[in-house]
């Protein structure tokens, strides 16, 4: 609790200053809405925002799961085959020079206006940190542990399952945490490229209507989605990597 308080106090203070400045300077709501105006947008557009949130959450969660599946599979393959590692890893790094989110319009053409292109954009954005961290984690396993496993009749698969994979879990979760913060961005870009629902779509529609309060509300919800996913990953790590948090022997 003591760690949460200082940033919360600062945030509340900043919100207060924002409200005061906007009111004192008589800034119109469509230019820069005060926190109170954003709050009333939440109330007025509750149904619209609620439905859009459900759509976007679905895209974020499914896209994230897709990227985890894809990322871990590729990391494991790259780990098991050094030929594949040498061929694929440089390409993966190079691929990061491509501003992947701008591929969203192309994906909309190829995959249509349904959920599929959004999932692909989310996966493209999230996949890289997952692969790199997981591959690194698998690669940097203590070689002495592997030698020990070999003297205990450990097959290649046993070494992977009982030593390399658990040892790589903390690194894998670092990758997942980074990816979790990217996922919402991916979903919004996917929606901007072509959609008829979701928070990104709501923002696009609100812009010409100068409903700036609604846009801010959507941004806040998107931040909350990112935060929630991050929290979910952290909780999973606590459950799946319990040996990292245990109190050492005195």
């Amino acid at each position, binding site marked *: 609790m003591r760690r949460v308080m200082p940033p919360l106090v600062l945030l509340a203070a900043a919100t207060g200053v924002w409200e005061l400045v906007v009111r004192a300077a008589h800034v119109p709501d469509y230019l820069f809405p005060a926190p109170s105006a954003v709050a009333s947008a939440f109330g007025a557009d509750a149904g619209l925002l609620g439905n859009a949130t459900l759509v976007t959450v679905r895209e974020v969660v499914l896209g994230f799961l897709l990227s985890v599946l894809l990322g871990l599979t590729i990391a494991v393959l790259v780990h098991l085959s050094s030929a594949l590692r040498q061929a694929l890893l440089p390409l993966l790094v190079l691929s990061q020079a491509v501003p992947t989110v701008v591929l969203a319009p192309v994906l909309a053409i190829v995959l249509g206006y349904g959920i599929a292109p959004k999932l692909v954009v989310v996966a493209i954005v999230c996949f890289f940190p997952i692969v790199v961290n997981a591959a690194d984690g698998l690669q940097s396993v*203590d070689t*002495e*542990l592997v*030698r*020990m*496993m*070999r*003297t*205990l*009749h*450990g*097959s290649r698969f*046993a070494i992977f399952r*009982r*030593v390399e994979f*658990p*040892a790589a*879990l903390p690194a894998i979760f670092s990758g997942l945490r980074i990816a979790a913060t990217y996922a919402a961005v991916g979903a919004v870009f996917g929606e901007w490229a072509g959609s008829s629902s979701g928070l990104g779509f709501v923002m696009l529609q609100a812009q010409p209507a100068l409903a700036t309060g609604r846009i801010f509300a959507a941004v806040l919800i998107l931040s909350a989605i990112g935060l929630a996913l991050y929290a979910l990953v952290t909780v999973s790590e606590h459950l799946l*990597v319990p*040996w990292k948090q*245990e*109190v*050492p*022997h005195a």
Partner: protein
Amino acid sequence: MQTVAEVTDARSPIAGAGVVLDRVTRMLGGKRVLDGVGLHVRLRERVGIVGRSGAGKSTLLSLVAGLDETDDGTVSVGGQTAAEARLAQCALMPQRDCLLPWRTALDNACLALVNDGLPREEARRRTEPLFDRLGLAGAERLRPAQLSVGMRQRVAFLRTLLAGKEVLLLDEPFGALDAITRGELQEWLATALDTEPRTLLLVTHDIEEALLLCDRVLVLDGGRIVSELDVRLPRDGRTRRELVTSAAFVALRELTLEALG
């Protein structure tokens, strides 16, 4: 009382011919770490190897275990020279305990059984009774980080024993321990080896430890065996303390120290 041999079904191949090193040379980073080493450890013999740090002791154990290959000369265990065959007959306890932090003490100890395809519950059921014998009762469900150094070493040792191999290779098994715990574990190991006889190669820089536990002690220096001592101490029924202070022991220690230069 249940023995380790029963737990592991004693299905390890018989290292009948013991361990034989013939003019073994190993180069590491341009340096001759082992330089024409010849050695014959008979079945069920206990041989200690002492020497300074960097004398090539750990390299020698890795070679015997089948984790490393010679540059010249041959290593054979039970008459077989292939690395895989050596791996199948030797259990190596490395200097560090190398326990897996994510497994409980019990699951670490029964790792070899699980690797052999035994169901996890069955492996645990067979291993559990041995925890009492090693003074590890109550530690079964704790992870390595929650164990004392002495307990970790004992779990590592049990794990090595449960691999069910004929040849035990111990690399400074008690190096990380304080003097009192080390003494206790040495005594315990001596008893354990009497009830579970194995062929033993013990690497250490503790001369007392080698003399206490072994039938024969070799001094390794600069990659060569420079001296060899027969240890014929009347061990029966004598405590560690009585042994260490006996005239024969003191004389042997002097001889070994002299050989070490």
